[in-house]
């Protein structure tokens, strides 16, 4: 489906990003596995892709740092010669009730989860405009639509990503660059493992399909959005949440 396309997946050392990297590679894409901290886990993803006959490199860059982002894009183009798909997946949480949330925790989450999407998108635009084609897939969250207590920073960032997706889609549509967002619900990852059993039980009550999502459920939608099958889809936010928010 993605034969010989080049994709950057941010935050690809684990969770949803990892699964997207692996499934894009399986579909024939060359992958840049971006990560910020866990070098070992990024290396594992690269090894797994290469072992299965794919092609991947890892690149350490904090998405909220413009010069690191630019260096990553440059290396991608030098190494693979083009850049067709960007998946803005990197994200962090610093949950707390609004009254107890520090300014630093608010800023840090906005920096990575929202500004990071802006910086990576800006940096790939030039190459995609030249190629007159490209796909940008932003991983938002269903809480960016519904709100969620204890996540003022995260929700603000994820709602911001949806607005950014729509604006970018409109600006870049004349150059055949399609920009969409995915809003996952409750997906089993490291990030959701940290929730207490009580929190998990409460969430399950809200999900009509009555189960957690798997990272593959999200990767499958990302694959669709990156593929030719989504040629007429842009500016959309697709929820992958088991019906949690309608």
């Amino acid at each position, binding site marked *: 489906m993605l034969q010989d396309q080049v994709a950057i997946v941010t935050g690809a050392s684990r969770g949803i990003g990892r699964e997207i990297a692996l499934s894009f590679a399986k579909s024939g894409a060359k992958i840049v596995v971006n990560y910020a901290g866990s070098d070992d886990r990024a290396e594992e993803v690269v090894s797994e892709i290469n072992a299965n006959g794919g092609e991947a490199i890892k690149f350490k860059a904090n998405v909220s740092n413009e010069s690191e982002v630019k260096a990553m894009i440059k290396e991608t183009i030098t190494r693979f010669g083009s850049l067709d798909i960007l998946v803005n997946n990197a994200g962090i949480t610093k949950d707390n009730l609004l009254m107890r949330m520090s300014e630093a925790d608010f800023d840090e989450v906005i920096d990575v989860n929202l500004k990071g999407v802006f910086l990576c998108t800006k940096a790939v635009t*030039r190459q995609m*405009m*030249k190629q007159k084609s490209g796909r940008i897939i932003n991983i938002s969250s269903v809480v960016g639509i519904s709100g969620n207590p204890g996540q003022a920073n995260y929700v603000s960032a994820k709602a911001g990503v949806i607005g950014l997706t729509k604006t970018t889609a409109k*600006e870049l549509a*004349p*150059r055949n660059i399609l920009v969409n967002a995915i809003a996952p619900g409750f997906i089993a990852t490291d990030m959701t493992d940290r929730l207490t059993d009580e929190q998990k039980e409460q969430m399950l009550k809200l999900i009509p399909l009555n189960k957690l999502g798997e990272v593959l459920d999200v990767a499958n939608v990302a694959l669709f959005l990156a593929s030719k099958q989504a040629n007429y889809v842009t500016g959309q936010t697709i929820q992958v949440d088991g019906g949690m928010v309608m």
Partner: protein
Amino acid sequence: MADAFEKVKQIVVDRLDVDEDKVTLEASFKDDLEADSLDVVELVMELEDEFDIEIADEDAEKISTVGDAVNYINSNQ
């Protein structure tokens, strides 16, 4: 000057699909050559590649006529 102008003219003609005689030094990209803002951004990118220069965003915003582009290229090469 003449050399840069000829090259810029060629790029503008190709990129914006306009008649060569419309591309004068005084011609405004947006008003006279019917470029939209994305066209201008692309044009600037192409000039950067062609002349092997880097045009900062602040400077790029000031380029509104063909002459502005030619002047910028001549003083930064």
